[in-house]
């Protein structure tokens, strides 16, 4: 492992912040390992996106606008990244810790005989060995695992854990030839986008989450969304709210939902069950609004305001809006 490869996840040329966080960290890692930092972008929109990725401190950006990436489920991406890794030589491959990022990481690990550091929030490099630090079991413990010296290693990187900073050497762009592999097996027949325009929950710097205390679906739109937008954040929910059908499961935070680590987490009408806690306890600041002073959430909040959410939230939104104006 000497070079660093960043896998850029995107949708028709649109990517998320974690791409730039990885591109920035890749430079630091490559310098520590004495190698180069590269990015791989494949699928429709790759070339356009490459122009943006190139403004980060990388040596090279490998692209291919291959439409097969929109037709087949992940199979072409696995082939491309494997081909890039073999062309670039021994390297640490950074992949975002997302649904398809985890799939890709597992498949590449089997193909390249690579060790995986999962959900990494910090890297430590000593004598060429890469150690990965990750919070596990919903943040109940922090593990450090070392990828054994080998040609290839893989890390799935947690969004929001590393800083992104553009600048540095102008990276060269080159086409990554289409690898000839096995025929692709899984065909995408239909691809539907829902709830676009909203900030991805995992990447939002502020999360305003609602629970059973909100009593129905409307307050998520009328109460929480305005506050989240005023703070530049996204709306999340407890499982009780998702189970009741008030919000889609994609907003659920916790053990069986998403793990979020925003700078600010505001829990509204959420009691703070352990299964909820494990999905948000690593947040920067935690504020709770609850009618019940004895709610479990008090145990891990920086501030609990005891009162009625329906009265407090609109006032708070107004204060935040006023401060912005």
């Amino acid at each position, binding site marked *: 492992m000497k070079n660093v490869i960043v896998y850029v996840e995107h*949708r028709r040329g649109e990517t998320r912040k974690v791409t730039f966080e990885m591109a920035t960290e890749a430079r630091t890692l490559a310098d520590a390992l004495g190698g180069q930092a590269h990015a791989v972008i494949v699928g429709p929109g790759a070339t356009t996106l490459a122009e943006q990725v190139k403004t980060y401190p990388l040596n090279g950006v490998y692209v291919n606008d291959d439409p097969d990436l929109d037709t087949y*489920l992940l*199979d072409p991406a696995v082939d491309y990244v494997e081909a890039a890794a073999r062309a670039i030589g021994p390297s640490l491959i950074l992949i975002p810790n997302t*649904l*398809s990022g*985890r*799939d890709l990481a*597992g*498949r590449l*690990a*089997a193909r390249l*005989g*690579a*060790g*995986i*550091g*999962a959900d990494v929030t910090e890297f430590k490099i000593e004598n060429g060995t890469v150690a990965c630090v990750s919070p*596990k*079991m919903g943040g109940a*413990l*922090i593990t*450090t695992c*070392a990828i*054994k010296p080998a040609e290839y290693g893989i890390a799935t990187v947690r969004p929001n854990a590393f800083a992104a900073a553009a600048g540095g050497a102008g990276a060269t762009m080159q086409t990554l030839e289409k690898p000839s592999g096995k025929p692709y*097996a*899984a065909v*995408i*027949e*239909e*691809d*539907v*986008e829902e*709830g676009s325009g909203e900030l991805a929950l995992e990447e939002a710097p*502020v999360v305003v989450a609602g629970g059973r205390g909100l009593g129905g679906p409307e307050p998520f739109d009328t109460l929480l969304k305005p506050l989240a937008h005023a*703070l530049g954040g996204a709306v999340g929910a407890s499982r009780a709210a998702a189970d009741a059908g008030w919000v889609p*499961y994609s907003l659920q935070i916790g*053990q069986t*939902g998403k793990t979020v680590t925003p*700078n*600010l987490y505001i829990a509204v009408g959420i009691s703070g069950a352990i*299964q909820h806690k494990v999905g948000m306890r690593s947040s920067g*600041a*935690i504020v709770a*609004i609850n009618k019940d*002073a004895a709610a479990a959430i008090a*145990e*891990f*909040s*920086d*501030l*609990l*305001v*005891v*009162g*009625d959410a329906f009265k*407090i939230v609109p*006032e*708070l939104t107004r*204060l935040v809006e006023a*401060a912005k104006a």
Partner: protein
Amino acid sequence: MKIVVTVKLVPDPNAEKRIDSATKRLVRSGVETVLNPYDEYALEAALQLKERAGGDTSVVVFSMAPEALKETLRKALAMGADEAVFLSDAGLEGSDVWATAYAMSQALKKIGFDLLIVGGLTDDGSTGAVPGALAEHLGVPCITNARKAEIADGTLRVERETDSGYQTVRGPLPALLTTALTFGEPRYASLKGIMGAKKKTIAPLTLADIGLDLAVGSDGAKMQLEAFAPPPARGKGRTVEAADGAAGAQAIFDFLKEKKLV
């Protein structure tokens, strides 16, 4: 049709986790071992597909774990799985994702399947990388995060959730499928199921039975766990009783200003 479901046995996710300050290990005493929650959803999916297919469809659960945890697998049999296969061997200790997936794949080749259903994520290691690695070792299509699945004429058709919506995907059998939590709530084991499970078999497998070409366990692992540490302490914060909405909002706003969050 033969459906195999992989089930990891993990420490109870609902128990508070503690690190022993001397050994730096997770305290396991007093913490029950359970079926990994995601895997209960995978099993539910298998049981639903079996009910729909009828005929001679069978559901086999597979787990790889230390011998002492074997009986935990009975819960899967009580939920409705027909049989279980349990791979256990001291030589597997210290396996990482790569070694786990490789050993599992060799056992699964021996067991055979038309459809392999795997959970999306575990509650302990939670790498979520085992499904992809398994699919590669087995050379089968890998379709993840399904909320619906149907099988017709040797083709698997899946509706899967993505980060931005959903997709419909098809692939040929045999295939590997992972399930989203929206596939359906895992059923409870009935009393009849619990009684029946006592008579079902948990077939043991060891490394000698599956014959591996490559090393597994700590020797074969490509990754080594070096240290466990407790998270930075997060103490109980302030509690403010709000006289009215405006006072509550002001208390929060002052806090946000103090923390430079607005």
